[in-house]
């Protein structure tokens, strides 16, 4: 029998991968920030469903910290135009 949580995590993980791949060829910084925000949200949802599928809260704790750090970095980049240009 297919585990519903694991299957949902798989689908959301594939969607997150597509969003990350879509953000690579983008040239506009605003567009990249949009894709980054969606990617962080999808990865967090994947981890949330994975933590239930595996029955452990460690994954959930880790992803809360990772999402917090990711949003802080992206907000800093968005507040300082030019910081994302290499």
């Amino acid at each position, binding site marked *: 029998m297919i585990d519903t949580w694991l299957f949902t995590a798989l*689908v959301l993980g594939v969607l997150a991968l597509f*969003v990350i791949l*879509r953000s690579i060829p983008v040239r506009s910084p605003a567009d990249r920030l949009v894709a980054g925000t969606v990617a962080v949200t999808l990865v967090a949802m994947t981890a949330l469903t994975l933590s239930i599928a595996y029955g452990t809260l460690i994954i959930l704790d880790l992803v809360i910290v990772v999402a917090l750090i990711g949003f802080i970095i992206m907000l800093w980049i*968005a507040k300082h135009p030019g910081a994302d240009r290499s």
Partner: protein
Amino acid sequence: MSSLLADWGIWALLFTGTVFCGFGLMGLLIFPDTMSRMFTAFRATAIGLGAVILAVLLYGFSLFMNNGGVQYLALILHTLLLGGVLAAGTWGMYRIIRERIRLEQQVNSCRPPAVPDPD
């Protein structure tokens, strides 16, 4: 195991959440400008996130009512914390990116139109 009614509710919410996240990805792919891409992707992903979080809350609550146990309360609290972090982050990004796009549009509208070279 949770009850059958809760299982159906969880399944429906997970399905809804996944479908709306797919809409968010489609919004990123098919719309022509950044503003409409951001509008669609953020809204659809937020609805999907809400549905998945509701599914987790329903799962935790039904197991807590059936079996008891602190771990289900911890799951509910951690999920609410994650939802808060994601909602606040997405809202902050939405406001900053919208402001940035407005500034870029103002700068572009102030520029004189390009004059073709007479030669």
